[in-house]
């Protein structure tokens, strides 16, 4: 039997309890970030990289690119290292999975806003 005002008790209960919304940029608690969050890849073991470029071929959006090591990087055996075009990355972590030597690792970094497009290339 339909009646009016079915949700009234729920409304009054909410007035007394804490709001569910999280004031995100100012605090990060209440976001429930889980342990295995798929974030950006990180370049963890540079000395195991063989320069096979499997990660570059497998990436669905062309976000990872192998370049020659610049003078300020850790020099690898082959002289190549991957860089991340963060504006194209879709956080799928297929590169982490496909790497045969375990060079790349998963991290929980997901905040990817920058003011300039050139800042989005992460070395």
């Amino acid at each position: 039997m339909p009646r009016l005002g079915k949700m009234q008790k729920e409304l009054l209960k909410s007035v007394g309890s804490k709001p569910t919304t999280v004031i995100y940029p100012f605090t990060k608690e209440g976001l429930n970030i889980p342990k295995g969050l798929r974030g950006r890849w990180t370049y963890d073991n540079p000395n195991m990289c063989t320069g096979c470029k499997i990660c570059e071929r497998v990436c669905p959006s062309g976000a990872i690119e192998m370049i020659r090591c610049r003078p300020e990087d850790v020099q690898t055996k082959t002289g190549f290292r991957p860089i991340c075009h963060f504006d194209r990355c879709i956080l799928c972590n297929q590169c982490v999975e496909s790497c045969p030597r375990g060079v790349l690792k998963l991290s929980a970094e997901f905040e990817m806003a920058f003011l300039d497009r050139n800042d989005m290339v992460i070395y």
Partner: protein
Amino acid sequence: MTSTSNRTVVIPPRVSIPIGPQHPALKEPAMFKLTVEGELIVDAEVNIGYNHRGVEKLAESNTHIQNLYLLARICGICSATHNGNYAQAVESAAEVEIPERARYIRTLIWELDRIHSHILWLGVAFHEVGFDTAFMYTWRDREVAMDMLESISGNRVHHDMNTVGGVRRDVPDELVPKLLRGFDKLKERMRYYRDVVLHEKTFWDRVAGVGILETDVAKKMGAVGPTARGSNVPVDVRFNDPTQAYVPMMDTGDFEMILNDRCDVAGRTIVRVEETIQAIEMCSWLVKNMPDGPIRERVRPRIQPNEVLARHEAPRGELIHYLVTNGTDKPERIKVRAPTHANWVSMAHTLKGNYLADAPIILAAIDPCYSCTDRVVVVDADEQKMELVPLDVLRVRANKWYKENPRRDE
């Protein structure tokens, strides 16, 4: 001044109101031109195609694994269904059997996706009617489902759990109690929302008797999903043609197809709410009965030449992926038939005879996802004209083109 002898009856003139490409009622762009007489809708014209992105063409130049990610991003709400259905298609083209645990995890993600999609729809239906309070409350409770999906797959939308040959991530054992607690909480909240839908007079007045789609019209127009089940047409791929872990689930006999014979928007609402409660029960069953074992199997990247059709019950209806492979690691042709494509022809029929105020809730009742539905518009740049191409004309033209340009590796 008119005299009483020659009285004329004044019919309100017909105004054409566009619920146009941009409108607060629509989540995605589509064009509905409604011809209105006062408040009564007399005629409706439906135009879609604003969201065509060329996904099928793009998929021909990607490998199968890259295509999994591409197809998952066709739609944000039903992303796990495109992902899983394509993986299913490639596995049946390669004729491999995936391990048992992988099937259970894939089905668990599918059912969790159904839960979150139906709760989203319920919130949007409340918003279209003007009941913003219930919109906020249902989306608050949807966060429980999103948190569960995030702890299993690592991402709130675009779960990307599947790969060719199984799933990528496992459900660890310490996560199981948390999942079961989340399911209990969700079930209790969904029962409360079912009470709100049925008993709140201001909402029930808006959806009862509105947007009627009779059973035989639904069958004739080929409606699928909750749109058809709310009109008492028993189509459901999970029950008619089960794959993956639905096979042992149907063998237990605990679950039944949910039908409703009200044939209006209220019927579809009730079907979706009941389906959410059933999906929560299915998820609990899957988590409790999950077998141990490996979660993926190695599949060689080159798939044998084959032609398969994979079906799956997305939250909106029956989703079909048609896949043609040649011997390489890239597909030859993919065709996606989204459930909204089968449902939107019934929209023009259900809009007639209702008031203008009911137009948003009727449009939202089939749960449209225009991103899934690609429609081809042929633009002739030389002659400066544009035409909308209906499906059979498109088929004739496509056959003619393929006959004139034979396949490259023949």
